[in-house]
């Protein structure tokens, strides 16, 4: 056993340093940051532009008192609906020539006045671009301004009892969905790389040297963990450099997500474990499929079906969201390749911890099974080894 681990370690060390210390790895690290960076820059620019554009300005000509009432009514609405959605009001004292003043204000570009409101509040008059949104808002503001002078806001006592169960479970579904999607995307991005892991050894014949020295299983394990470590390294880089960006772009960030059923610390720990499990499961499967390929072209051809298989399994795992104890939810948790995704969703929704222990053990067993079968398949088809075994006895040899 010690020799097995040491052999796997020799392979893992070589693969890890060959991957991480290559120049291309820098591009690998930078690649996902580009869309994030551009996305962040453009969305913040467009948000600012939108904020300036979307609020039409209405000039109000009238007494100071009227304008204050109108502005108070606007303030009240802004508290409920958000300032971004309301008209901007600018007050002007009336001039002797009303028509000339109206014309001048409408022609002015700073600020770009859309319409001019004039007259007392109980006899208002609007000149200029009267689109339905602007007119509607003005009507509401005027009636509130008039009403505000006579009545107070009704009193609504609030007793806080925490979020209702209905709201919480539907919110937790969001957490489950987001966590599952992130897990899926990360595995999708990272695990198809494993397909080509053996091409190098096969094309430059190092495989012969390795196969003569260590068991094939140890080589597979070494390669898989090397890629997992490289992926985790990349994730750490992406997360630290991405966290700032996310904080900039997203207002509430992660804090707005509801607490998962098992609590944040356990949930995050489980996320890491299930990412590793998901990666190892898909990676083991892909490593073995890819090991059969002898050229880079074959690997490329294989990668599309491999991606679709992952999407399919993601869809299967997604059925567990909302009701992890349904038949399909349990099936998704039991089927090895969808198990980590389904179990992570469960962690967001259900508080029990023991199913996770069972799930992790179950997944680890399957990683071992896939690698064991893969090593046999490799010895048989690639190294052309062993006595003839009928396929129905394949697993027992």
């Amino acid at each position, binding site marked *: 056993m010690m020799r097995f681990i040491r052999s796997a370690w020799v392979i893992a060390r070589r693969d890890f340093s060959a991957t991480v210390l290559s120049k291309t790895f820098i591009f690998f690290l930078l690649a996902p940051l580009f869309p994030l960076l551009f996305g962040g820059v453009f969305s913040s620019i467009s948000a600012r532009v939108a904020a300036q554009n979307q609020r039409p300005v209405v000039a109000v000509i009238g007494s100071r008192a009227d304008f204050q009432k109108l502005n108070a009514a606007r303030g009240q609405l802004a508290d409920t609906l958000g300032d971004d959605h309301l008209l901007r009001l600018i007050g002007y004292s009336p001039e002797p020539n009303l028509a000339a003043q109206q014309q001048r204000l409408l022609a002015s570009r700073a600020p770009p006045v859309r319409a001019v409101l004039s007259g007392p509040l109980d006899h208002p008059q609007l000149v200029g671009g009267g689109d339905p949104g602007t007119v509607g808002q003005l009507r509401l503001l005027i009636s509130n301004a008039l009403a505000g002078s006579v009545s107070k806001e009704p009193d609504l006592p609030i007793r806080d009892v925490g979020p209702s169960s209905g709201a919480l479970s539907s919110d937790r579904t969001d957490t489950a969905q987001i966590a599952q999607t992130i897990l899926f995307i990360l595995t999708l991005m990272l695990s198809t790389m494993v397909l080509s892991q053996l091409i190098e050894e096969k094309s*430059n*014949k190092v495989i012969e040297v390795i196969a*003569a020295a260590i068991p094939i299983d140890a080589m597979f394990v070494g390669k898989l963990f090397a890629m997992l470590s490289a992926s985790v390294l990349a994730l750490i880089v992406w997360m630290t450099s991405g966290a700032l960006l996310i904080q900039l772009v997203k207002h509430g960030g992660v804090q707005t997500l509801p607490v998962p059923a098992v609590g944040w610390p356990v949930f995050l720990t489980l996320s890491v474990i299930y990412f590793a499990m998901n990666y190892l499961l898909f990676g083991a499967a892909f490593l073995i499929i890819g090991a059969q390929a002898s050229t880079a072209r074959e690997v490329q051809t294989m990668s599309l079906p491999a991606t679709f298989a992952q999407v399919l399994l993601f869809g299967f795992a997604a059925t567990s969201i909302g009701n992890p104890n349904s038949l399909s939810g349990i099936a998704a948790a039991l089927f090895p390749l969808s198990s980590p995704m389904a179990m992570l969703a469960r962690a967001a929704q259900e508080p029990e911890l023991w199913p996770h222990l069972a799930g992790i053990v179950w997944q680890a067993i399957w990683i071992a099974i896939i690698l064991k079968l893969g090593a046999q398949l490799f010895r048989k088809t690639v190294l052309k080894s062993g006595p003839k075994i009928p396929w129905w006895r394949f697993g027992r040899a």
Partner: protein
Amino acid sequence: MYAVEAIDLVKDFGETRAVDGVSLRVPAGSIFGLLGPNGAGKTTTLRMLLGIIDPSSGTRLVLGRERPLEAAPEIGYLPEERGLYPAMHARDAIAFMGALRGLPLAEGRRRADALLAEHNLGDWARKSIRTLSKGMAQTVQLLGTIVHKPRLIVLDEPFSGLDAINQARLEEMIRREARAGVTVIFSTHVIAHAERLCEEIAIIAKGKVAFDGGVDEARSRLRPIVRLRTRASEGPWLDAIPANARREGGEFVFELPEGGPEPLLKALIDGGAGIETLAIERPGLHDAFVAIAGAKAAEAMAQEKPQ
């Protein structure tokens, strides 16, 4: 005491039988040659002995173990198709091969530097394999094969692709290792190497062992060869020459008859053959090979020689 014992190894690839019941015994500390044309089953036999592939039937015992991989730390193997990671530095490649066989990496690097310096490749220790010439890369791989000081070295066609100087160096290395008590098994289709190096050989043809034993023993299976050139072309002395003699450019070539040289000489002189040249040669391994493996196998070997 045998370093390697194989009993009745059989290997089928699909419908074709590549190795058909090979049995070998390699004494510990000897240099053992595996001779035969390409496709005879040499590489497949070696791969079975090393545990890269499992035989379809038959057993093997390598350094006393039934599973050769368990003995891996004590074995060094140079495959026929050489392979190194092109991006690795020469010293790292050697250390990596050692590490695969259980040698700690730091120690592997230290020994790699020493070995490279010994072979005048010290300047290349920190250059990537990609930049090395083919011959240098082969030397690097050979050093990687012995860096962990194995007790058994298996070399598959080690001489192919090497120039004369490097072939001589390799022969010297094999002898040096054998003197230190290491068992060396190598395969070749060039008989001269086996003749110079080996104490024991096995001749493999069509997946079977056609001969197994000492080089002298292989030779002694044949009678000495007589090469004769005469001035006369006709005469009663012709009766003394065996019927199966070949004519090679005016020379008679035939096996020395049972009676020995004396009756032959007497008949030639009495018959007035006019002996121009006469040579009685001990048969070479090549002749033995022809006799043992058959003319066809020998022809196949000859065709591969340009390599």
